[in-house]
């Protein structure tokens, strides 16, 4: 591995070039936030496999690639994008190309009164007082290097604001399209969602690589839920197979709020998602369900940390992984129950299916409980396709490959059926067999 300090210097110089660029109309507090995070990143540097949290995630390829900030205007037309997004039906859509907001590819009509959905860059200026109390407060840049890096380069992304008691019926679709243009581009998109008390909304975050190629998406999403807010979050990660994807989702939950997230992570050469849920007030519920699939030499990692800070909160985690070829996966799930968080009810399950002998997965559940009177459980499994089921399917006429493919799909679809929104569930249901078939033809060529 190259001297990581030296490479960090490269990012430092890129950062100082970014800082010298005219800040536009960004308010002073944003500039201060960037500087603080930049300074923090300079101290932290990139994590190495010597860091416990990064033991199985080697970011050397990210560090060694001379990524530079993504070009503003690649040519993507509505017609090119449409096949990848039309499944969502009627929707509000914010589209970003290589990290930059594209008004032409966005659809923002008929939003209920008071709801804001738009570019973060614009919102920082226009609606500064809505953002200032939240932006950068929930995703921790003090000890998370990639959050610090994202915050230091904070420039554009999505901002969604739901006033108290509002309900947005149609899903809000946030699409990040990467369209590499021969250059190794990096983008640091930022998403901030502030859901007021008793508001309800459904959001889809989608990451799409429209062309094969090398790029790096380093995204941070902050979600803040007010009292009694109900928020349905979905994450579709379909980056190109050569891409790097590091995502941090930080959720701050108010009293009796409900956060539910369903994710499907299939793309990227290296893709890591961190989910940090803070149950910051009594009676809140956080449900995370995710499916990750990797083949070839892909690496996929899911790292969750649920912080039960207050009493009577519930958390549920179900993550499933399918690994084939020489792929590697990590599930690291941490549940922290603080001293006053009595009557906590926390459950975590991770099941992995290995389709080849060379695929590996590291699964580490971690419970830290400082309160009495709690219900906590966790379980992890790693296995192969069940031989009895294989025989059952073959005894009904299916050949070995079809039987294996159907069983793999069945393993994944167990989780998808929980998705409440019909069109989103259908989309997940459609992508899984497509991915499975591709994986089988790649891993087990006839």
């Amino acid at each position, binding site marked *: 591995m190259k001297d990581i300090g030296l490479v960090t210097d490269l990012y430092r110089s890129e950062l100082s070039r970014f800082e010298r660029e005219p800040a536009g109309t960004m308010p002073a507090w944003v500039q201060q936030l960037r500087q603080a995070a930049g300074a923090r990143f300079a101290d932290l540097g990139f994590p190495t496999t010597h860091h416990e949290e990064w033991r199985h995630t080697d970011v050397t390829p990210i560090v060694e690639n001379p990524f530079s900030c993504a070009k503003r205007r690649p040519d993507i037309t509505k017609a090119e994008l449409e096949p990848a997004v039309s499944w969502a039906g009627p929707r509000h859509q914010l589209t970003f190309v290589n990290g930059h907001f594209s008004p032409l590819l966005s659809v923002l009509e008929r939003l209920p009164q008071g709801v804001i959905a738009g570019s973060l860059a614009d919102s920082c200026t226009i609606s500064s007082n809505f953002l200032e109390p939240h932006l950068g407060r929930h995703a921790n840049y003090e000890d998370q290097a990639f959050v610090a890096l994202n915050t230091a380069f904070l420039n554009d992304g999505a901002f969604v604001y739901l006033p108290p008691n509002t309900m947005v019926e149609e899903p809000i679709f946030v699409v990040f399209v990467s369209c590499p243009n021969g250059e190794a581009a990096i983008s640091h998109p930022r998403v901030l969602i502030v859901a007021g008390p008793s508001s309800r909304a459904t959001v889809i975050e989608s990451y799409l690589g429209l062309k094969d190629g090398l790029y790096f998406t380093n995204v941070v999403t902050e979600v803040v839920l007010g009292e009694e807010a109900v928020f349905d979050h979905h994450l579709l990660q379909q980056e190109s197979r050569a891409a790097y994807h590091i995502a941090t989702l930080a959720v701050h939950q108010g009293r009796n709020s409900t956060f539910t997230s369903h994710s499907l992570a299939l793309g990227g050469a290296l893709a890591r998602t961190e989910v940090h849920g803070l149950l910051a007030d009594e009676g809140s519920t956080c449900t995370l369900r995710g499916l990750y699939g990797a083949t070839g030499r892909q690496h996929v990692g899911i790292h969750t940390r649920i912080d039960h800070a207050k009493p009577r909160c519930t958390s549920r985690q179900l993550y499933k992984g399918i690994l084939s070829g020489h792929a590697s996966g990590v599930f690291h799930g941490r549940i922290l129950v603080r001293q006053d968080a009595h009557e906590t009810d926390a459950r975590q399950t991770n099941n992995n299916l290995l389709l080849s002998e060379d695929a590996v997965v590291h699964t580490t559940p971690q419970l830290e409980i400082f309160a009495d009177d709690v219900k906590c459980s966790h379980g992890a499994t790693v296995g192969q396709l069940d031989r009895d089921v294989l*025989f059952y399917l073959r*005894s009904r006429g299916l050949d*070995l490959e079809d039987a294996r493919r159907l*069983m793999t*799909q*069945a393993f994944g679809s167990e989780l998808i059926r929980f998705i409440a929104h019909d069109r989103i569930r259908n989309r997940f249901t459609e992508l899984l067999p497509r991915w499975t078939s591709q994986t089988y033809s790649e891993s087990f060529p006839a």
Partner: protein
Amino acid sequence: MPDPILEIRELHASAAGKEILRGMNLTIRAGEVHAIMGPNASGKSTLAYVLAGREGYEATAGTIRYEGKNLLIMPPEARAREGLFLAFQYPIEIPGMTTMQFLKAALNTIRKHRGLEELDAIDFLALVKERAQLLDVDADFLNRPVNAGFSGGEKKRNEILQMAFLDPKLAILDETDSGLDIDALKIVAGGVNALRGQDRAMLLITHYQRLLNFVVPDYVHVLLNGRIVQSGGKELALTVEERGYGWLEGPDARTSEEKAAP
């Protein structure tokens, strides 16, 4: 007399390295319903699995001809496509796959093999409705994952439903009556009876005579220590019910080869 569908000759088979079947003979022709009765460990399930081609159940000597072809060299899916069907004693659970998806995948594979068009969603649903009625199965049942959380009766009904779908030439029912209460048994037996026909042969494997009150066989065989020791008509089942298996277990029922063994 129609040609035999199944001809088993001097079959020896082992499971987990242990010899279970020791020179078994059986011939089944189209339209016939045969019952094989036998106590635990007589080799009933081994026979079912050897016929279906399950891993770990190995024929070590003898032959099995299915429609004149060597069954033992065919992979399990080829046997199924050629019309052999096993209703499992312990149907397997498949979380994440609905019975509907399962039926559709199996039916279309077999139709394709028979040179028929795959059924589209509408025709498939129509067929599901028709066949489901036969077994008193509702839509909820079909949309649940295969056998997951099913009661014993539901699992067995699901097996017969699959049989009704796949239209086999030879159906082997492995202890389909076990674990069923009388109502469930009647439903299952009703389904089986409805599927009897000139072109279909059936092999009922059972421990008790109970099922045979509802599905009356043409022939009854008693399997003991891996060999058929007695064959007869349906009345043999009643004799077994009355007298148990003990009277067949005497030294006369054994071969000289076994007598010589230590």
